């Protein structure tokens, strides 16, 4: 179970790309799921890939191996019913 209070997300240019990324990551037996794009990143309605925070490095490697490019990674905190989103750095 990915921690609902503190997790990572990878954004993609399209929801379809996000879905393709999900398939790749699941195949490699890493936990992930598609969730709605947080407003803090973009106002549009799309899907992003949610992962364990500590898995972000591994996930990024997997995606680059398969030449799936991404639109950035973020760290999300959800505390006291409020969400905060920051760009993720290793």
């Amino acid at each position, binding site marked *: *179970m990915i921690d*609902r209070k503190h997790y990572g997300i990878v954004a993609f240019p399209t929801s379809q790309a996000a879905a393709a990324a999900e398939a790749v990551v699941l195949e490699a037996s890493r936990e992930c*799921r*598609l*969730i*709605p794009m947080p407003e803090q990143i973009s106002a549009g309605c799309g*899907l992003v890939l949610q992962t364990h925070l500590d898995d972000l490095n591994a996930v990024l490697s997997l995606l680059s191996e398969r030449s799936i490019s991404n639109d950035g990674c973020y760290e999300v905190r*959800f505390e006291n*019913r*409020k*969400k905060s989103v920051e760009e993720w750095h290793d």
Partner: protein
Amino acid sequence: MKKIDAVGQACPMPVILTKRALKESNGETLLISVDNEIATQNLAKMAEQLKLSVQAEKINDSLYEVKISDPNAGNEAHAAEHPVLPDQAADTEVPSGTSYVVVLNSDFIGNGSEELGRTLMKSFLFSLTEQDVLPEKVLCYNAGALLTTEGSAVLDDLKALEEDGVEVLTCGICGEFYGVKDKLAVGTFTNMYRIVEILRNAKTVSP
């Protein structure tokens, strides 16, 4: 004393104008003019329900005056414990007007592609878990009963909602119909009487 002219306005305008005035009045007596007896009766009904005193007087065949006053005006302690209008109550857990119930009547959302609809359902329920105000209940019926069944793709989100105090209810008839009555994985079963009661009394959100 504040005067409200509702002559020429038919019900429920006199009531609406009076309600607005009550919100702003701070215990001031209100004098509402209307042109028919029925309006005086509707104003009297509201005043009685709000525990205010009311006096109606017929001035002539087309003019009636209704005086509404707060018998506890000036008694601040009383006012704090007994707010005049239901939505002024200070002691509700949820900010007034924001409580709601989510109704899921299928295992997918919207019309068009069912596959997209299932993805939307997952997105919807995840977003629900991150709302600043959670629903009081989530009601599942017809194919919605499949969402609370073992193996459902949205169980984690529903369980998370339950952990955070949301009541997850599934219609028993529907559970039986889909043959999943013994595989309920989150929340409890309920019956149609309770469902009707909940739907009648709540603000419902049906994605």
